[in-house]
């Protein structure tokens, strides 16, 4: 349809001549040049970000496979769970926390770090998408992935372990959103300040630390005493504890969990915005 190679030009000695002629025809189709609507640019970019995230094997594993695997493992073995409560009510909030952490901090941080190294951020910033559009698209793709994670974990918990939604679901969504913002800010802070390889290492290290210390699969009260004060101020701990409260029959979230999470979200966002470098 769009092949505009002239048959006469093809006979020319120089192979490039017909393509050059075709180029001029290509660049002048009917219709005024201009940017596409902002929403269309945003959605196109968000789609690519999401596709790329899921196409990368390790991202797929860390965001979708690992939380489900850990949920099944701990729920089936019943280790390190306070025995007064059904284990799934303890584990599901922990795995939701881990899921939001993996998509917000791990995946976003690593992919953004490498995009910065490859000049992708720079190039997109110079396109009609703009830097603001790029950030919006990243937020949208991370949210879409998190929706997928929440649905997947909820379904596994309900089908395999008889979990039923109760408590204050809206509060849980609010907490997840605040947690997502916190971890995304953390990922962007590292991606914008460190070399991509360093970001990769730091993000994976933090993930392990948060997994062990954040009350995700192991209750903080089971940790060695000297480390408990540190563990309790981590953003992961605030999110997992808050979610446990929201999803409990009382549906109450401790004010300290909200406050701690908000402080982390605000602090990390300010740091990320201040230190982010696009190149």
């Amino acid at each position, binding site marked *: *349809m*769009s*092949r*505009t190679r002239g048959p006469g030009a093809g006979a020319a000695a*120089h*192979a*490039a*001549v017909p*393509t*050059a*002629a*075709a*180029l*001029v025809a*290509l*660049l*002048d*189709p*009917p*219709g*005024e*040049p*201009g*940017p*596409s*609507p*902002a*929403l*269309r*640019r945003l959605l*196109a*970019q968000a789609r*690519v970000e999401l596709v*790329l995230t899921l*196409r*990368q094997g390790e991202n797929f594993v860390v965001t979708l496979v690992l939380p489900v695997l850990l949920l099944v493992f701990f729920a089936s073995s019943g280790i390190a769970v306070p025995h007064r409560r059904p284990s799934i009510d303890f584990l599901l909030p922990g795995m939701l926390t881990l899921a939001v952490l993996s998509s917000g901090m791990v995946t976003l941080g690593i992919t953004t770090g490498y*995009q910065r190294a*490859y*000049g*992708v951020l*720079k*190039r997109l*910033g*110079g*396109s*009609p*998408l*703009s830097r603001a559009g790029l950030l919006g698209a990243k937020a949208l793709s991370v949210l879409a992935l998190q929706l997928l994670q929440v649905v997947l974990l909820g379904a596994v918990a309900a089908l395999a372990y008889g979990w039923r939604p109760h408590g204050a679901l809206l509060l849980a969504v609010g907490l997840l959103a605040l947690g997502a913002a916190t971890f995304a800010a953390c990922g962007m802070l590292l991606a914008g300040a460190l070399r991509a390889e360093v970001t990769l290492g730091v993000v994976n290290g933090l993930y392990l630390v948060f997994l062990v210390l954040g009350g995700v699969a192991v209750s903080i009260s089971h940790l060695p005493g000297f480390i408990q004060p540190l563990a309790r101020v981590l953003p992961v701990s605030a999110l997992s504890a808050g979610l446990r409260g929201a999803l409990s029959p009382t549906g109450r979230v401790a004010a300290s969990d909200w406050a701690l999470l908000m402080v982390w979200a605000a602090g990390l966002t300010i740091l990320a915005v201040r230190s982010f470098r696009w*190149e």
Partner: protein
Amino acid sequence: MIDRSGGERGADPLVPAIALDGVVRRYGRTVALDGLSLEVARGECCALLGPNGAGKTTLVELCEGYARPDRGRVRVLGLDPVADGSRLRWRLGIMLQAGGLYPALRVEEVLRLFGRFFAVPADPMGLLEAVGLGPRRRSRVKQLSGGERQRLSLAVALVGRPELCFLDEPTAGMDPTARHSTWELILALRRRATTVVLTTHDLEEAERLADRIAIVHHGRLVACDTPRALRGAGAESRLEVETAGPFDPGRLPRLPGLGRVIVTGPTTFTASTDSTAAAMASLAAWMRDAEVPCSSMRVGTRSLEAVFFALTGESLSAGDGGIGSPTEPAGVGREGGSG
């Protein structure tokens, strides 16, 4: 939200594509641009020529809105590239010096993505054919060679049908075939009256493609003119002679019309002259009598390399990683260039 401003397009063709006025840009203690002024007209192809570190990329990136000048004024299509970014970006085609493409995406996915940023993009598949990447459209970007990446980057720059293209070292890392077809594409852009600003440290490239060459050195504009005018400035002609066997030009007597003789190789020498016909006649007569067989004798003008050296005191190719092939005396034998 929708920052379309179609009404401005071509509203005033008298507004230059680029106008830099006394632009200073520092990076730390390094002065990248030192009070540079330059104007590029609509539809013009302007080559920024200079060695690495001359300030070419800084100049281009100020125009693209990636940075602000410390002093002076930058206007692109009459707009401030930073403050008016959303009204300007869709009119520009940008090819960065390196990178800028997702390594994990397929070639066609990259071009489709950038195409979606525009209301009526150029057909992505046709564009890939035009840059010679049709057969590679399903490949991942990371599988492409350096030259293929450059060509994809060029296609990305063109997918929005820009009025003004910034091509930062468009043929760096390309093999000679790819280089020549890229030149053809840039010449096609020129015929379409797309304004092109390209940077290069390849004299042949500048001379082939550009209406005007701006020589940038230590952040300053040291010359800006057509290739022909640059070579002609203060030029004296010279004779380039090659003998069939080894020859010592010290044997040459003073001959009518022949100026200073410079040995350029075991069988080659050049001689300056203000009268090429007289110099050729007397040299040919002497060689016949002295039985020195001559295999080539031709008139050359000053090469751009020599012009560059005279203006900057530096060689373009010195200390460079070998992009391009400056061994070939640029300009010689192609008087008049392509402009």
